C-alpha cells in the first residue's frame, strides 16, 4: 500500500474511532435514556479544549493564542481530564436542563445551550482563543517514540482503538445491566418507572453525565490527532450528524450505532470528498447538510428503528408472572 493511502486510511480510522465513541455516548443519552441532547457537541468540544490546553502548556503573554490554564501534562492525563470536564459540564447543564420538565422544554434548552456555548467561546477570546481557536497542539508521545510519520499514524490508530474498547466496555456494562433496563423503562414510560420507585431525574442525570464523559474523551482524541480546534468545528448542526448516525444505525443498539457511525459521519461525509467541486464556494457544504437532513427524514419515515434495530428484550416467565398471565385468548396478535 502506498504511503499516501496508508496515511489516508489511518486518518479515516481515527475519525471512525472518534465518531463511534461519540455515537455510543449519544446513544446512551438519546437511544437508551431518551434524552434529546441537542448540545451533545459542546461536551465533545469541552473535552477537546481541555485536552488541547493541558498539552499546549501555559499561554505565553502576547503569544498568538490566548487561553486559560495551560499545562504540560503527559499523554493519557489530558484525555482523562477531558472526560472529567465533559462530565462536570454535563452536571452543570443537567442541573437546570434535566429536571421534571416536559421533554420538549429539555430539547429546546439543550439547543439554546449549544448556541450560547458557541457564542461564548467565540466572543471570550481569553478563554480558548476565540474564533481562531487553538492550534499546534503537540501530538501525544511524539517526542518519546521514534517513529516515521506513518508509523506514528498507526500508533495513534492503536491508541484510539484501545480507548474505543474501554468506552465500549463502559456502555456495554451500562446497557446490559439492570441500570440499562431501568433507563429504557424511563425512556418508554416515565410515569410507570417513577411509580415503581425509580429515581427518574437522578438516573437520567446519570446517563447524561456518562454521555458527557464519553463525549469529552472523544473530543480529546480528536484534538490530539488533528492538533487544532476552533468554534467552527463544533457548531450545533454537528450534533445533528451524530443524531442522524444514531438513528440510521439503530438507536438503543450499541452495535447498530457503530454501524451508523461508519455509515453517516465517515462513509457518507468522506465519500463527498471525492466528488468534484462545483458551484460557488460553500455550495458543496450546503448540499452535504441538505443531504444529511434528508437522510434523517428518510430513515425516520421508512426505518425509524435503524439498520440494526434495538433488540426486543424478552424475559423468561417466572412462576409469579406465569400466575399473572392473562388468558391465552387475549395474548394472540402480539
Amino acid at each position: 500500500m502506498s504511503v499516501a493511502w496508508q496515511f489516508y486510511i489511518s486518518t479515516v480510522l481515527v475519525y471512525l474511532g472518534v465518531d463511534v465513541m461519540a455515537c455510543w455516548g449519544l446513544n446512551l443519552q438519546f437511544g437508551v435514556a431518551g434524552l434529546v441532547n441537542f448540545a451533545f457537541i459542546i461536551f465533545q468540544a469541552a473535552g477537546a479544549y481541555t485536552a488541547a490546553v493541558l498539552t499546549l502548556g501555559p499561554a505565553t503573554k502576547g503569544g498568538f493564542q490566548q487561553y486559560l490554564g495551560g499545562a504540560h501534562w503527559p499523554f493519557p492525563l489530558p484525555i482523562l481530564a477531558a472526560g472529567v470536564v465533559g462530565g462536570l459540564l454535563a452536571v452543570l447543564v443537567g442541573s437546570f436542563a434535566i429536571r421534571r420538565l416536559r421533554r420538549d422544554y429539555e430539547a429546546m434548552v439543550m439547543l439554546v445551550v449549544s448556541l450560547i456555548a458557541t457564542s461564548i467561546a467565540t466572543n471570550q477570546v481569553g478563554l480558548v482563543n476565540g474564533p481562531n481557536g487553538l492550534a499546534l497542539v503537540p501530538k501525544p508521545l511524539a517526542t518519546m517514540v521514534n517513529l516515521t510519520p506513518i508509523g506514528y499514524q498507526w500508533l495513534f490508530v492503536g491508541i484510539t482503538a484501545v480507548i474505543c474498547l474501554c468506552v465500549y466496555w463502559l456502555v456495554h456494562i451500562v446497557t446490559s445491566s439492570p441500570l440499562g433496563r431501568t433507563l429504557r423503562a424511563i425512556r418508554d414510560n416515565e410515569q410507570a418507572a417513577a411509580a415503581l420507585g425509580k429515581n427518574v431525574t437522578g438516573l437520567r442525570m446519570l446517563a447524561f453525565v456518562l454521555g458527557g464523559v464519553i463525549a469529552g474523551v472523544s473530543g480529546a482524541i480528536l484534538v490530539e490527532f488533528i492538533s487544532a480546534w476552533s468554534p467552527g468545528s463544533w457548531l450545533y448542526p454537528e450534533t445533528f450528524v451524530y443524531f442522524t448516525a444514531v438513528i440510521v444505525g439503530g438507536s438503543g443498539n450499541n452495535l447498530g450505532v457503530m454501524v451508523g457511525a461508519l455509515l453517516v459521519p465517515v462513509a457518507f461525509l468522506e465519500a463527498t470528498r471525492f466528488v468534484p467541486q462545483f458551484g460557488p464556494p460553500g455550495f458543496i457544504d450546503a448540499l452535504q447538510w441538505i443531504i444529511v437532513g434528508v437522510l434523517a427524514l428518510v430513515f425516520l419515515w421508512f426505518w425509524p428503528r435503524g439498520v440494526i434495530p434495538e433488540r426486543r428484550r424478552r424475559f423468561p416467565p417466572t412462576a409469579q408472572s406465569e400466575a399473572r398471565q392473562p388468558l391465552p385468548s387475549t395474548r394472540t396478535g402480539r
Partner: protein
Amino acid sequence: MNTLVPAIGFGIVTASILAVAGVGFTLQFGVTNILNLAYGDIMTAAAFVAYLVTGAGFSVWLALAAGAAFGSVFSILLNRFLYTPFVRRGTRLFGMIIVTIAVSLILQNSLLAVFGASFFSLQMPRPASVHIAGMVFTTAQLAIIGIAIVAMLLIHLLLRYTKLGKAMRATATDPELARNCGIATDRVIDLAWAISGALCGLAGVILVMNVTSFTDTTGAQFLIPIIAVAVLGGIGQPYGAMLGALVIGIASELAAAVISPDYKNVVAFVILVIVLLARPQGILSEIATRKEVAA
C-alpha cells in the same frame, strides 16, 4: 444614564420583534403540539423573500406582506406534507423534534446554496431619525413597533372575541375534549399554522429591517431569545410571550449597552435558566401546569 435611555429604546424595538416572533412560536406549539425548531429558518426564508421583493423595486410594505404570506403558506405546507404525515405514522416526540431540526438544516442550507454565503440587506428608503423622550428611533424602527402593536392587538382580539380564537384556546388546552365538543380541531390546527406562520414571516422581515445585514443563519440565531421568551411566558401562552418579549427585549439591550453587545443572547439565556430553575411552567400559566401533570 446617558447610555441607558437609548438602550431602553433599542430594547423596545427588540421586544417588538420578539413579541411577534415569540407569540407565533408559542401559538404554534400550544395549538399544534409540535415544537417547530425550523421556526427561525422560516423567518430567514421570509427575510429572503422580502429581500427579493425590495430588490425588484417594490416598497417595504409589500415586502412585509409578502414575507408574512410566505411564512403562512410555507408553514401550512410544511405541516400538511411533512409534520402531520410523520405524526400519523406514529413518530413520537423525540422523533418529531429531530424531524423539525432536519427541516431547519435543509431550509438553512438551501438558502445558503441558492443565495450564497454573503451578507444581505433590504433595500429601504434612507430612514430619518426621530427623538422621543431621550430615545432615538429610525422611522423603520417606529414602523416595527407599530407593526408589533397592531399584530398583538389583532391576536388579542382573535383569541378573546372570535369563535376561532376560542376554538384555538380549547384545542391548546385539551385537543381530545375539544374534538368531542364538536370543534373541527384539524381545521383549527391548519389555521393556527397559517396564523403563526404569518407572524413568523412578519417577524423575519422586521428582524432584518432592524439590522444592517443578514445571512442564512440570522433567524436560527434569533431562536435563542425566541425560546427564552416562550419559556419565560409559559409555552403555549401568547400573553405570557408578549410579557416575556418585553422583559427579554429590554434586559438584553440594557446588557448590550452596559456590558457588551456580545452578551445580548447570553442575558436571554441566563433569564431562561433562572426561569427553568424557579418557575419551569413560566410566569403566566395555569394551563401549562395542568398539562405537565397530564403529560
